[in-house]
């Protein structure tokens, strides 16, 4: 079921508005991420979807149905919390079957359903164990199975991976993706980790200060950020930000006059700074900088480059480029990942338009 927010706002008593006039549609059967720094309103948005919170203004629709006044139960949402909140006194199977038990489905039937779900999330060998005996990843799987047990209209995941270690996190995000695809349930996933969001989602909603910054699929977000915030929040290493004035001379020939006048900040992704010999898809600029440092981590090479007093992080060079400190380096920019923002922090020019 798709979720529609119409001019939804939320304010806590005696405090400023937490969410301002949100409008969006979360598409049916897809995995959508709510992404943003802490305090941006993403968990609040999730709680509004779940019905644990009621908006101060605006309307919420599940499909055609207005659910604004309905609680979590009536909305039939399934929810997975950051710390899983598995009932510690119930076995894995009892946990998964709990929503079915509350629906008074008879024991045989609900155990059968529970076992099927356990197979789906790969915990079928742990059915008689208690949550305390499971690893973090397994608890997570059980929590997902429990949320799926009542065949929710929407599955909500609140930072589900942040309690897991790095390797498990990568494994579990693949798992969540698989489970979502297998069941086709509309899923909303909250995270502050842009990398996680990029890997797992069909769509990403970037939130900051209680406002939607951009809502699109991951690659669009990456390649066509709407504003400075989105450009710098997405991507690792963080996008290089330098005053446009420094390279105005070099850019003047390739950008329209109107853009040139309003340009304030130049944004360049680290991987978009490349050697001149890579001939395809260059911007017609030839720039120079001095190598400050070169660091290699496995297959990655991080180069710090001084360009007229501004330091740039560069990952577009390879080992074979044989860089040395203090060396003067000539480079160019790819047509992907170079943006210009105006003083309102909106992206007004994207190098792909050249």
């Amino acid at each position, binding site marked *: 079921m798709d979720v529609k927010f119409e001019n939804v706002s939320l304010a806590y008593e005696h405090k400023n508005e937490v969410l301002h006039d949100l409008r969006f549609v979360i598409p049916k059967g897809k995995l959508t991420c709510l992404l943003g720094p802490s305090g941006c309103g993403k968990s609040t948005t999730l709680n509004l979807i779940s019905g644990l919170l009621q908006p101060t203004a605006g309307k919420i629709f599940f499909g055609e149905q207005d659910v604004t006044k309905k609680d979590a*139960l009536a909305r039939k949402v399934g929810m997975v919390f950051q710390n899983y909140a598995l009932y510690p*006194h119930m076995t894995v199977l009892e946990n998964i079957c*709990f929503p079915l038990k509350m629906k008074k489905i008879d024991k045989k039937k609900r155990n059968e359903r529970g076992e099927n779900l356990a197979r789906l999330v790969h915990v079928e060998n742990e059915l008689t164990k208690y949550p305390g005996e499971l690893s973090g990843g397994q608890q997570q799987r059980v929590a997902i199975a429990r949320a799926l047990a009542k065949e929710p209209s929407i599955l909500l995941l609140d930072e589900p991976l942040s309690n897991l270690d790095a390797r498990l996190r990568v494994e579990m995000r693949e798992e969540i993706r698989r489970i979502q695809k297998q069941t086709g349930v509309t899923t909303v996933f909250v995270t502050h980790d842009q990398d996680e969001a990029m890997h797992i989602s069909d769509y990403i909603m970037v939130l900051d200060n209680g406002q939607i910054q951009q809502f699109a699929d991951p690659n669009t977000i990456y390649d066509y950020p709407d504003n400075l915030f989105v450009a710098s929040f997405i991507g690792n290493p963080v996008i290089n930000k330098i005053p446009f004035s420094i390279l105005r001379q070099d850019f003047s020939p390739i950008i329209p006059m109107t853009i040139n006048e309003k340009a304030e900040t130049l944004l360049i992704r680290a991987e978009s700074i490349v050697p001149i010999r890579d001939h395809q898809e260059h911007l017609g600029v030839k720039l120079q900088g001095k190598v400050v440092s070169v660091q290699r981590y496995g297959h990655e090479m991080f180069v710090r480059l001084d360009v007229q007093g501004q330091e740039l992080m560069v990952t577009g060079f390879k080992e074979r480029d044989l860089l040395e400190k203090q060396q003067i380096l000539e480079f160019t920019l790819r047509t992907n990942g170079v943006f210009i923002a105006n003083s309102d922090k909106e992206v007004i020019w994207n190098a792909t338009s050249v």
Partner: protein
Amino acid sequence: MIKQKPSAKTTLIAFLYLSPMLIIIGTFYLYPIVMSFAMSFYTKYNFYTNKVSEVGLSNFVTIWTDPDFIEALKNTIIFVVGVVPLSVIIALVIAILLNKINFAAGFFKTVYFLPFVTSTVAISLIWQWIYNSQYGLLDAFLGIFGIKPIDWLNDPHWAMTALIIMTIWQGLGFNIILFLAGLSNIDKRYEQVAQIDGANTWQRFRYITIPLLSPMTFLVSVTSIISGFKVFDQIFVLFGGNPGPGKSTLTLVFYLYEKFYTEWKYGIAAAAGVVLFTLTLIITVIQVWYSKRHVHYV
């Protein structure tokens, strides 16, 4: 910490540190326990010269054939069965209500806790007045519903009920505080999750709160049962030093007290003590066994 291998010297030092507590426990707990066990087998014994001229099992035979002892045993069990379940349930209900309200919760907690910190003698004296058949508040209250006055403290049929009511009331505060502590230990998220999982208020109480509260319920039950078996002072004051009208509230400890202090039958008193000890032990063992299967320590 530096790991040291225990040697004779370090062990001695450890014992020195422990000695103040060991001496107190040894003098006032262990020695009397051992001695009273021994005393229960003294059948001919001079208390003043501490001379034992005969040992045997006849003390136990005597108490088992003493109708007073059987009565005391019966009364104690009735008392425990009357007090503990009601006390636990009422305390739980009040604790849950107190946990839900924010307004004046501190005030109510204090009010409920007051009886626990008040001396039993004072409480019993007040209840004597409440139970008074002519001027008592309780009979006045029951009179509103057309119930004839009951002579709580002098009618053998009602004395035990009177005792049970007062004891429940007195112990409520402590049990409520324990339950409140247990409730505040339960993560609020479980309620929230259960709500989303479709559990209504009753189901959340039944499947989440009760099981997660079970360690506290267990603790409250155990302490209530044990203190129930030890009941004495409430009876002593409430019935003016007598074991109730027609011995209707004669309990094990009261029996023991009478044998020891008024009849000077030390061996018999000790034997009654051993029976009380054994009963408490059996019940504790049953509770431990039960808790392994039904109490969820998280």
